[in-house]
C-alpha cells in the first residue's frame, strides 16, 4: 500500500513539471475552441476561411497583450455570443447540459446496485 502511495506521489511530481503550456500550444488550444462562423462546423484552427484567419491573427495579438485564455474567450463571447465557443461554459444555460449525463450515470449506477441489493 505504501509503495503504491509513493508511486503516485512520484507520478504527480513528474507529470506536474510539464504543466506550463507555452504560447503556441495555448494559441492552438484557443483556436480549436473557437467556432468558424462562416463555415459549416469547423473550428477556427481547422478552417482557412478569411474569417478564421483574421481570428487567428487576433488571438495572437491578444495573447501577446497578455490576456489569459478565459479573458480571450470573454472577449469573443462579447462580440459574437456564446455560440462561438465549442466548449460550453458552465452557466445557467448549460447546467443541465453538463449535469444531466452525470445524473444519468449516477441513476444507472443506482439501478445496477439496486439489482444486487437482495443478493448478499
Amino acid at each position, binding site marked *: 500500500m505504501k509503495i503504491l502511495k509513493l508511486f503516485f506521489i512520484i507520478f504527480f511530481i513528474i507529470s506536474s513539471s510539464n504543466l506550463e503550456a507555452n504560447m503556441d500550444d495555448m494559441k492552438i488550444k484557443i483556436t480549436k475552441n473557437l467556432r468558424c462562423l462562416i463555415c*459549416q462546423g469547423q*473550428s477556427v484552427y481547422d478552417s482557412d476561411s478569411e474569417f478564421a484567419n483574421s481570428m487567428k491573427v487576433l488571438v495572437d495579438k491578444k495573447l501577446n497583450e497578455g490576456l489569459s485564455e478565459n479573458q480571450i474567450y470573454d472577449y469573443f463571447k462579447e462580440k459574437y455570443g*456564446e455560440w462561438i465557443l*465549442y466548449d460550453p461554459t458552465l452557466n445557467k444555460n448549460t447546467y443541465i447540459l453538463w449535469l444531466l449525463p452525470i445524473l444519468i450515470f449516477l441513476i444507472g449506477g443506482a439501478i445496477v446496485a439496486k439489482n444486487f441489493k437482495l*443478493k448478499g
Partner: protein
Amino acid sequence: MLLSVIGHYSLVLGLCVGLVIIFFSIKNFQISEYLDVKIVSFTFLQLILVFLSFLCLILSFVFSDFSNETVFNNSHTTKPLFYKISGTWGNHEGSLLLWLLVLTLFIFLFLIKTKNQPIKYKILTLSFQQIIIIGFFVFLIQTSNPFNYIYPTPEEGLGLNPILQDPALAIHPPILYLGYVGSSIIFSSALAATCLNIISKKWASHIKKWVLISWVFLTLGIMLGSIWAYYELGWGGFWFWDPVENVSLMPWLALTTLLHCILVLEKKQVLTSWVIILSISTFTLSMCGTFLVRSGILNSVHTFANDPGRGLFILVFLFSLVLISLFVFFFFHKSNHNELNNFSWVSKETSIIINNWFMMYFLSVVLIGTVYPIFLDVLSSEKISVGPPFYHKLIVPFLIPFLLAMAIGPKLKWVKSNLNDKFSMILLLIISVLISFFILKIFEANFLINTILISSATYLFFITSRDFFIKKFNNISQNIAHFGFSLLILSILFNSLFSSEIITNLKVGETFEDSNTKIFFKSIKQKEEKNFKSIIANFNIKNSKGITENLSPELRIYNQPNIVTSEADIKTSMISDKFIVINIVQNQDYFNVRYQVKPFMLWIWLSVLLISFGGLLSLFKKKYEQ
C-alpha cells in the same frame, strides 16, 4: 420521361402492395398454421417494385435525364460515370429510395430465412415492418418524389458538389444504410416477439445474426465516413463530433449494447427488458438521425436540403412509431423480477450489466450534446455550440473503467467466478502502467489522465493478445473485436498526442525550416481536367532524420458548381501519415501551407476493420456450427 413514369408508378404500386400485405397478414394471423404463400410473394413483389424504381433512378442519372428534377439538381453531363451512379443516392430523394430498398429487401430475406420460429411471429414482424415501409412510401411520394417532372427539359444539370465526388463517399451511404435500416428488422421483430411473449434464448439465437449484420455494416459505414472526412475535407481530422457524425454513432452505441445483451440472453433468460428497449432505441435513433439531418434543424457540414415540411413529416412519423413501441412494451411485456438475482457480483452477467450502464452513459452524452442546443434555442432563444471539448471531457475519464471492465469481464464465468489467474492479471496491469508512463515521459507529453488512459487501453490490449494464445479459438470473435477496440483507443490516443502540424505561408521557391522539418515549395503547375481546372503544387519535405519526401497537394477549381476545393496529398505508412494541404490566400501571391505528421492513422482504420471482422466471424461461426 419513360424512366420517370415507370419509377414513379412502381412506387405507387409498391405502396398499394404494402396495404395488400397488411390485409392478408391480418387474415393469415388468425389461421396461423402455415405462412400464406401469397404474403411471401407480395413481399417479394414489393421488393421488385422498389428495386425497379431505384433502377429507373440510376438509369436517369446515367443518361442525364434532366427532365427529372432530382437528376437536374444533382448531376451534370461532365460527371464521370461512377459518380453519376453514386449521385443517385447522394441526394435526399435518392437516399430515401435507398432506405426503402433496404427496408423491403431485409423483410423479404427475413421471411424466407427464418425457420423454427412461430408463424404468428413472422406475420407480426412483417406487419410492423410494413407500417414503416408504408410510412416511407407515403413520405417519398408526397414530399420527396425522386421522379418529379420539370418542363422544359434543361440542357444541363446543376451538378453535384465536387467534395461528394469521392470513392469512399460513394459507397458510404449504401453501407451505412444497410446498418441503419437493417436495424428496422430488429425493431419490428422485437416488437412482434414482445407481443407474443417469446423473448427467450431461442429468439435471441435467431435474432443475433440480424443484429450482427446490421452492426457490421454500421461499423463499416461509420468508418467509411471518417475515412472520407480525413482524405477529403482537408483538415486532417477524422471525427469532429459534428451532429451528423453523432447521429450515426448513437445507433451504433445502442446496437453494440444490444449485441452484448443478446449474447447474455442466448444463455439465460435475463435482460429481456433491456433487449426490447435497445431494439426499439436503435431504430428510433436511426430515424431520429434522419430527422435531424434532413429537417434543417441542425447546422452541419453535411445537412441535406433544409426543408421543414419534410422535417415535420418525419417527426410525426417517428413519434408515431415511438408511441406504438412504447404501447407494445408497456402493455405486452411482462418482466421477470426474479431475473437478476441469480448471479453474484463477480460474474459475466455483472460485467455485461456494467457494460450496459457505461454504454448508455456514453449514448446519453452524445445525445444530449447533439440535441441540447436545439432545446435551448426553442426554450430560451439562446444559441450555444457543443463541440469536441464537451465530448472529450465527459467521455474520456469514463473510458478508463470501461476499458478495464472490458479486460476483466470476459474472463469471468457465468453466475459466479473466482478469478483464477489473479496474479498474472495484476502483473499485466502493472506492466501496462509502467509502459505508458515511460512512453509519455520519453515523448514529453503531459497530463496524468493520458497515462491512466493509455494504461487501461494497453492493459486491454495485453489481456486480449494473451487470450489469443491461451484460449485459442474459444470466443475468438469476441477476442478479435475487443482486441481491435483496444487497438483503436491506443491508435487514437497516440495519434492525438504525437501529431504535429506546421502552418506557414509560402511562395513558390521558398523554404520553411524549423528544428525538425524543412519544407521546400518546389514548383507549381496547372492542368485542365474534364470538369475542373487543377493547380498542383510540389513540395520536398525533409524530416529530422534527413529523409526527404515528395508531396503534391492540389487545388481544384470546378466549373459546375463554382467551387474551389483543396485536395490533400497524404503519404500513408504503417508508422504515420504525412499530410499536406494548400489553400489560396485571398489577394496574395503566396499560398497557405499546412503540413501535418499524423502517427498511426492507418492503425485507426485497421482496428475498426478488425472490430468488424470480429463481428463477421461471429456471424459465420454460427453458420458453421449449425
